[in-house]
């Protein structure tokens, strides 16, 4: 914790005015003017006393969310504690000493012995860990003459997940339509419609599930057991085997590093889209160290996958010989390449997408409101090739 007094332009101006009034008072024998000068001078002292003193007993703690998202506000909260038993605190600004664009938090008042929670929003512009090292609480209260600040060293971190774009309606269905994926029968029993087997009756089974013929022939009650509906599966493989400077990209187009980021955004968007549509997903990152992920469904699984994508360090050495492991379960494999597609990576049945197609897969802004219920559109399997100019009629182009 470090306290400081700062030179403040209005304070400097005020001091100049005080000096001028002092000169006038010295040259003009008017005691009223002398008093005006005295009052103005005492204002400077008062400013230091009335706000400098309470800041001695100021404590603050920062609370950050675990994750954020590129382009989305990360709400950071500060618990400002006034440990003084006498002096209240007013008009406090909390400012992070960081390069992340964001606003200042403002606390109007903290009474003696009270604590108040203020919040501010930061807008991370890149994925990865967002580290906030220290923050400063400053005030110019009561007269705006001197700025007083207290610095707190409190390092905390938030993982910024990659941007997730809203894909065109039906994109996922179209991509997976030609592959072996799709709703299948599960080996687990549940409230599905497919037949799984027959077993003995157990108390609690419904009458409508009783296999009457089998029961009549066997002489004991038997029940038809049905399987749960297995969700469709999709495996997203992100091909990052080639180092950034070895990528073969169009010199007039986007930079290689930007394309890699686009590929990550595309992977994140497809994963999010798939999870929303009920798919089980698995993320495989080729070329960079990343944890092996299972094929799962659900919010927390998606968060884990996005966290893997967020933590990817593109400056790390690449493993050029990485191969995509064979999928044990039936699933659509979607390979996202940064530059050119490497068909040897996967056997037949995989769908290859380039990072340059990100723009084409994104839903146009004008249709976002209309596409609140994104029902799959048949025949929209192949996205338009125009990468950055979305078509006004999604799915119409091929």
């Amino acid at each position, binding site marked *: 914790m470090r306290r400081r007094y700062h030179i403040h332009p209005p304070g400097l101006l005020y001091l100049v005015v005080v000096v001028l009034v002092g000169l006038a008072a010295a040259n*003009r024998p008017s005691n009223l003017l002398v008093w005006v000068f*005295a009052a103005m001078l005492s204002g400077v002292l008062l400013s230091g006393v009335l706000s400098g003193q309470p800041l001695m007993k100021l404590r603050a703690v920062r609370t950050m969310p675990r994750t954020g998202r590129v382009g989305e506000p990360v709400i950071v909260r500060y618990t400002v504690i006034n440990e003084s038993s006498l002096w209240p605190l007013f008009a406090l600004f909390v400012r992070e000493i960081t390069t992340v664009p964001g606003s200042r938090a403002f606390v109007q008042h903290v009474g003696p012995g009270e604590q108040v929670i203020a919040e501010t929003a930061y807008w991370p512009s890149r994925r990865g860990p967002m580290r906030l090292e220290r923050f400063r609480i400053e005030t110019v209260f009561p007269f705006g003459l001197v700025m007083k600040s207290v610095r707190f060293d409190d390092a905390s971190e938030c993982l910024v997940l990659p941007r997730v774009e809203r894909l065109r309606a039906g994109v996922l269905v179209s991509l997976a339509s030609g592959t072996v994926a799709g709703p299948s029968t599960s080996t687990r029993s549940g409230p599905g419609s497919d037949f799984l087997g027959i077993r003995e009756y157990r108390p609690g089974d419904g009458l409508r599930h009783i296999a009457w013929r089998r029961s009549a022939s066997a002489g004991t009650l038997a029940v038809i057991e049905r399987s749960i509906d297995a969700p469709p599966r999709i495996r997203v493989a992100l091909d990052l085997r080639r180092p950034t400077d070895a990528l073969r990209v169009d010199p007039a187009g986007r930079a290689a590093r930007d394309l890699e980021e686009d590929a990550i955004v595309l992977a994140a968007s497809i994963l999010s889209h798939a999870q929303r549509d009920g798919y089980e997903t698995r993320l495989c990152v080729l070329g960079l160290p990343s944890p092996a992920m299972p094929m799962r469904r659900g919010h927390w699984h998606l968060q884990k996958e996005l966290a893997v994508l967020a933590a990817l360090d593109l400056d790390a050495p690449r493993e050029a010989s990485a191969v995509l492991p064979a999928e044990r379960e039936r699933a659509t494999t979607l390979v996202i390449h940064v530059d050119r597609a490497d068909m040897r990576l996967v056997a037949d049945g995989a769908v290859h997408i380039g990072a340059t197609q990100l723009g084409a897969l994104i839903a146009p802004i004008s249709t976002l409101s209309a596409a609140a219920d994104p029902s799959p559109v048949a025949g929209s399997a192949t996205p338009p090739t125009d990468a950055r100019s979305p078509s006004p009629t999604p799915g119409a182009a091929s």
Partner: protein
Amino acid sequence: MNVALLFRRAVLLLVILSIAAFAASERSGWVLVIGGLLAVAATRITDGPRKRHLPAWAIRFGVFVGIGWGAVQFMAHPSPDEAPRIVAYVVLGALLLKLWDRKTPSDWRQVMALSIVLVVASALASGDFLVGVLVIGYAVATIATTMLYHLHAGAARAEDDRRAAALRPGALAPMEAPHGAAPMRHLRRLAGAGVVLGIVLSAMVFVMFPRESVLGGQAGNRQSGFRPDISLWSAGRVSLSSRVAMTVTLLDPRGAAGPLTLPLRLRGAVLDVYSGSDGKWRGNTTHSGDRSYQTGPAQGFQWFAAEARAERSNVWTQVVEMRSLASEHVFTAWLPLAIASEEPRSFVLDPRTAEITEATAGIVGRPRSYSIRMQGYPSGALAHAVAGAAPPALADFPVLEVRVIAERILADARLVDLPDEEAIKADPQLKWVRQRRIAAMFQEYLSGPKFAYTTDLSAFRRVEGQDPIVLFMERYRFGHCEYFASAMVALCRSIGIEARVVTGYMATEYDTVSDRYVIRESGAHAWAEVRTGEWQWGTFDPSPIAELLAIQQANRTWMDSFRWVLDPIEFAWNSQFASFDSRAQAELVERVGSGTRGTGEWIAEQSKELLDAANRWFLMGPAGALWLGLVGITLAIAATAVWVVGRRARRVARELGASNERFTRRIALGRDVAFYFESLDALARAGCEKPRSCTPRMHVQAVQRLNPAAALAFTAIVDRFYEIRYGGMTPSRAQRAAADALIPPLRAALTRG
């Protein structure tokens, strides 16, 4: 907490106070009425539901026009005295225009800054009591308003920041500035503390500010009022103040109060030295024969000469009560014979001019009233007795052109039977006849139709190489009483007639209810005294009295009827504040020093008296002092014990969260876990202060990271603490001693670490 509403109201109050201060300095009710109404209307309309406001270009244009007008005015009247007024008018216009602008925090700041400039300019233009009161009120209001501004502007700025930083508009809900409980109560307290501290600090700076003598606070003031010197080059308009300076009760030789038929002239300062280079009249500063007199409640009149005490005929008494004037000069109507005061004071008589001044300078206890015995028509012997020695001859008038004018006037007057030099040689008394006749002729000449009386000297411009008296008589021929008196004295002295300028008051208003003259500042006057005998001086007033009285009468307003309310406060203002000068500073320092020295003695005396009184009351005899001493020591020990126990109980409540428990329980707990508090103190001194949010166990872990040895010792303490605080253990004396024994190892570990 609706800070915005409170702030808007506070700013409006500030603006009106600043306009009122300027109106008071200008003595113009219209400025207050029109300015105040415009300010209120602007605030109401621009803050209304439609938020109507003038376009920015119109406001800028208006401000530029105002600045242009100010520049033209200053070029027309290039006087340093006029500059604050012009600046104030320009700022007033800009302020009223700015109130019609939209209101962002920056605009509010500009409004406040303009009002501050307006107040400072008002203080520069006038040191009047009412201005002072308004300036002080403004300063107090500024403290609270500035605090409100920072709350209001801070919230707005934070919201703007939040909106500007947002990459996507509308992604965040509008923010409400968080605050704790009862913010307005805390703000009021803080503002109150600020006001008190501000007054104390500003009073200290005010007292210590290095200054020259500004006695009376009148220098540089263009209001009417008594002045102990005259400057004929101070042009401009002299505003007439209706403030009551003093009241005078005039008692005839039989002791009956009543008015005179003629205006009563009260002599204040006698000015007999003229400096042609700067056009100023001053008093003679060589007071070789001055005599001092001490007056007091039991001393009665102090007579200036034995003959004066014996004088029985035509001795009048004048009782002066100061109301708003704080001056060291004593005002007398005629030749003073004796002086008395209710308070112990010291007066000095200059026998050469019969001028009396207060010897004890400074602000503290300047006389509020005094009585003078005086003789309206003193004989030569009586005047000689008071003067004590022959008056020194006055030097000839230094401006030669005046003599030419005087001779021309004398020749034009064609005075018949004027004693010539031969006749005077034959009969020296004819000299005084001649001087009286010539002075009367000059008086008649100056008060004639060739000269006009006015208080507006804006057109009385300085001409290089020309004396202002010559300019008055030959070129401008208008002026106020100082010019008429100066011309009269200059004419007399240029042809060898001894004369001097006298400044004081002319009393014309008599209050028949209280039987006394009411002397207002507008009655300040200057006239001439011409030597008309060996020891006598005659009063000659060349100012046209009728015109003078008409101007004074026209200046009266209905507000003058209520002056009696303000006058006592105004007297305090003038005597304690406006006239605080370097001598008052020295006096105050001396009094404070002597007061500090005497305080110890006073306390010792009072203690001894109290002790004796208690001894007598309890009838304890000779050993009573000893008993009382013992009781006193016991009480002191008890008070200390209560303080220590109370402090420990408060700490228990604060740090152990036991505020809801009974006081006795808290005291017992404090005693039982004193070892724990001691260990916390030791850790805090070593830099391991325990945060209040941290449990003792967590604190052990924090200490572990810094000093494992200390953590080991502290663990034992915390274990014992938990047993007592939460385990229901009530430690015996031996267990408390054992717990205390845990502290030294901790201290040793901290010292090693």
